[in-house]
């Protein structure tokens, strides 16, 4: 009787394992198909010219490249990084240091709300507040993207710092170290891995944003490095070319998609490495 019971349980265990295995595989299938499709369509247009040339008019022998969008993406994402990181980390540190004051409760609520604002709305806001006065520019795009990025960085920072035991802060203060140095030299470095991971994942998230850039960075067919002028990015280029009627441009859109996916993948891999390298054992 007892023997049989245990057998039954073991069988149930086995069935359960198979079930969750099948379910997770099912979740993976669309992902694999999407990645496979992008890979198959994208890889054949990728070559050195594709990454270093400007696009050619339709009908030319070579289709040209996407260098302007590649450079634009790097500039706009980089700029968003510098705009979002100080505010994001600063706010995150503040929230974890002052957990229950009225101000921090309000700030936390705002951050959560901001996290839920659709990116296109942020784009319209940036349009209304910046573009209408200053014209379309890469900077306006970066500002829009950094607004999307800030809440993610805040939350990543706050959650990381909340996990650091208060005894390290005490140890530092007991050595006569002023509060600001304690934060800068002990607490933030202890959370460096987690904070960096949050920032990198936020970058990966905004790298593919299109909607807010339509109203701000606009796009450009030239290689432009002036952040006060319109600039192209990979998602914008994909949007343009994929909706065009030309077959060659569709190929370019696939190629650009492929590059964008690789870009995001690289950011994810780097954040994995950072987690591993700076993993701090408490």
């Amino acid at each position, binding site marked *: 009787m007892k023997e049989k019971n245990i057998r039954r349980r073991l069988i149930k265990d086995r069935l359960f394992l198979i079930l969750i295995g099948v379910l997770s595989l099912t979740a993976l299938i669309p992902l694999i198909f999407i990645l496979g499709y992008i890979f198959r369509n994208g890889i054949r247009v990728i070559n050195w010219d594709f990454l270093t040339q400007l696009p050619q008019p339709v009908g030319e022998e070579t289709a040209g490249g996407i260098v302007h969008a590649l450079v634009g993406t790097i500039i706009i994402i980089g700029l968003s990084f510098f705009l979002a990181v100080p505010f994001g980390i600063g706010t995150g540190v503040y929230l974890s240091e002052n957990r229950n004051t009225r101000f921090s409760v309000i700030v936390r609520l705002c951050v959560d709300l901001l996290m839920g604002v659709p990116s296109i709305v942020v784009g319209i806001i940036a349009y209304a507040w910046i573009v209408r006065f200053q014209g379309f520019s890469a900077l306006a795009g970066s500002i829009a993207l950094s607004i999307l990025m800030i809440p993610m960085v805040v939350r990543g920072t706050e959650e990381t710092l909340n996990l650091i035991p208060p005894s390290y802060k005490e140890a*530092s*203060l007991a050595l006569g*170290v002023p509060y600001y*140095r304690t934060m800068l030299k002990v607490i933030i470095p202890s959370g460096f891995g987690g904070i960096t991971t949050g920032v990198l994942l936020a970058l990966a998230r905004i790298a593919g944003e299109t909607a807010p850039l339509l109203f701000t960075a606009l796009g450009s067919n030239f290689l432009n490095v002036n952040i006060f002028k319109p600039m192209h990015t990979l998602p914008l280029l994909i949007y343009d070319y994929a909706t065009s009627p030309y077959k060659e441009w569709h190929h370019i859109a696939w190629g650009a998609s492929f590059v964008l996916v690789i870009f995001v993948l690289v950011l994810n891999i780097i954040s994995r490495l950072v987690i591993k390298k700076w993993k701090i054992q408490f």
Partner: protein
Amino acid sequence: MENSILTIKNLDAYFGKTQVLKNINLSFPYKKVTAIMGPSGCGKTTLIRCLNRMHELTADADYGGSIFLGDVNIFEKNPITLRRHIGMVFQRPNPFPNMSIYENVLAGYTLNGIRLTRLERDSIVQDALQKAALWEEVKNHLNKKGTFLSGGQQQRLCIARALAVKPDIILFDEPTSALDPRATTHIEELIEELKKTVTIVMVTHNIAQAARVSDYTAFLYMGELVEYNSSERIFTVPKDKRTEEYLTGKFG
């Protein structure tokens, strides 16, 4: 009493509305070891945390009364300079997780932005680790993270960190509760040695240890100072019944 370096006058301490120290009056003699004893939860940690103004860092903590270092009230001093003179070893070891063993020992200098030559650093590290009885165990991997050490080794690392900055007073909160008998003996010897130059306040649960190393003993009970006298007298002829009961193991 002989010349004292630190004098507590009418000290009260609170966490929110709970009063955990009640009108404490006590003075710590210069270059002597004073033990603070008492049952768990009676306020020993709170008392020594008042001495370097760590108590006020707890969110809703409050205090009343004064503590004189020489003839200045520490509550009127800058806590940062105060803490550089009064070192502390916490009840639970807390080496910095982002620093190696070597960097942990030097933390009191580096975190305060004090520059040292390579030679000075090496000698401070070796000296502090030797005093804390940790040198032999770690001398070959000073660059490992401090948090990889065992609990007892971490505690000795924290002792080394406190010693490295050469404070005038050191507060030990049960420094040997996580140590084996050999390391304990070593730390007790260290305390004997240290008191030639430093004033020591030590919380301990170990009666034999207090009898061995302390010159004076204060007995706290439920936030009150019950008895304070030379260790010799406390351990041979305690005046208060509660002290006697504690020493004979009736409670605590």
